[in-house]
């Protein structure tokens, strides 16, 4: 199908984009178009005006800031997957970006678009939730910062006001020697996951867990951070991981979905949690 008619504005920079948004009644920002264009083609979205952000160079790029990587909203998935700074400072984020869709999708899709679109199975919202990324929003009226866990509300729904631009997200550094793991079950490589999980684990000198973070994607209506405080002091191993995973998915609100019932989704989510923790433990160094 073809989109309904809309007017088009190619924003010169973020200030221009925000000024045009402030004066519009039914406008949408356009970044990579890799989620918005299908929705327009299917007429699931019919904004009167598209504000194209692709020329807003200041919205793109990776900077090392206080305690984290600040990533501009227009930074493409391909850049996250291949950039030397991201790969060394936040290898989990780079790996997650490398698994999104296929090359053509990653070349155009952006961090800001993925966060704003808020697909429950998407990789970058999952990693943002896991790591406690802070999302910077701006409108013509002012700026605010919001934690990922407060940003994602439900499927395709966020705390962003329609006139607010996602400017950047800051991903806190992983503590030294922290191991990380990503596990995704996809029917076909590059498809959205049926179930996914991400983990970070830090161990003390004796090999016991001192810090653990877990999040699951694709099985609830948004990425979910899990309470992993109970893992502190435990030794990483299959029994510990499985017990944790079973308890964690039992506490989640998981419903039947087309083609898969809630019990199967729970089992798959548990398997992904164990897999992500196993990978994280294998990568974790022991603190001196």
């Amino acid at each position, binding site marked *: *199908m*073809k*989109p*309904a*008619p*809309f*007017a*088009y504005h*190619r924003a010169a920079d973020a200030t221009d984009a925000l000024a045009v948004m402030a004066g519009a009644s039914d406008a949408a920002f*356009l970044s990579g*178009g*890799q989620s918005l*264009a*299908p929705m*327009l*083609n*299917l007429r699931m979205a019919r904004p009167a005006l*598209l504000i*194209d952000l*692709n020329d807003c160079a200041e919205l793109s790029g990776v900077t090392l800031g206080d305690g984290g990587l600040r990533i501009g909203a227009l930074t493409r998935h*391909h850049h996250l997957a291949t950039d030397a700074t991201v790969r060394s400072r936040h290898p989990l984020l780079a790996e997650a970006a490398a698994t999104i*869709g*296929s*090359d*053509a*999708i990653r*070349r*155009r899709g952006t961090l800001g678009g993925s966060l704003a679109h808020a697909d429950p199975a998407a990789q970058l919202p999952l990693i943002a939730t896991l790591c406690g990324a802070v999302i910077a929003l701006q409108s013509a009226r002012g700026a605010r910062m919001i934690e990922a866990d407060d940003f994602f509300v439900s499927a395709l729904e966020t705390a962003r006001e329609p006139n607010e631009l996602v400017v950047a997200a800051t991903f806190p550094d992983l503590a030294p020697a922290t191991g990380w793991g990503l596990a995704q079950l996809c029917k*076909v*490589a*590059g498809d959205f996951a049926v179930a996914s999980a991400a983990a970070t684990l830090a161990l003390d000198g004796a090999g016991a867990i001192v810090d653990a973070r877990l999040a699951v994607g694709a099985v609830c209506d948004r990425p979910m951070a899990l309470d992993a405080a109970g893992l502190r002091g435990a030794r990483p191993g299959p029994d510990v991981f499985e017990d944790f995973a079973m308890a964690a998915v039992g506490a989640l609100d998981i419903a039947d979905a087309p083609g898969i019932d809630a019990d199967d989704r729970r089992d798959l989510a548990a398997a992904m949690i164990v897999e992500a923790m196993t990978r994280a433990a294998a990568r974790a160094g022991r603190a001196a």
Partner: protein
Amino acid sequence: MKRVPVTLDVNGESHALSLEPRRLLSDALREECGLTGVHVGCENGVCGACTVLIDGAPARACLIFAVQMQGHAIATIESVARGGALSPLQQALHEEHGLQCGFCTPGLVMTMEAWLKDNPDPDETAIRAALSGHLCRCTGYQSIVAAVKRAARIARERA
């Protein structure tokens, strides 16, 4: 809705057009520029048939509006055979029977032409991953994978 002027730079030629903003790049290339090698399957980004290169990088033409492309260089399948000579990938697809109906072929050629530049000596796993963004209903992919391998070899020999 009002039409807007846009100049498309396609395969080194400039096309001055007047288009509605909602006009998909895939449709503009086919209907305004006559480049019907750009195939349209799903208009959802999934099948890969419409893939073209924008400033050298693969992109789905069905997920871009033509008005966005002012100032960007687009390459379609029509630019790949130079002076009538097939590219190594096209030659290898021919020799390995890498196409049957040919519907998926232009898109996957564009993706793999760009990909082979960055991956001159790929293994089979990497080739399969790179092809995963393209649906082919005819070949079962084996012959396409074989063709990409052969194309890499031909290109290395020519270099």
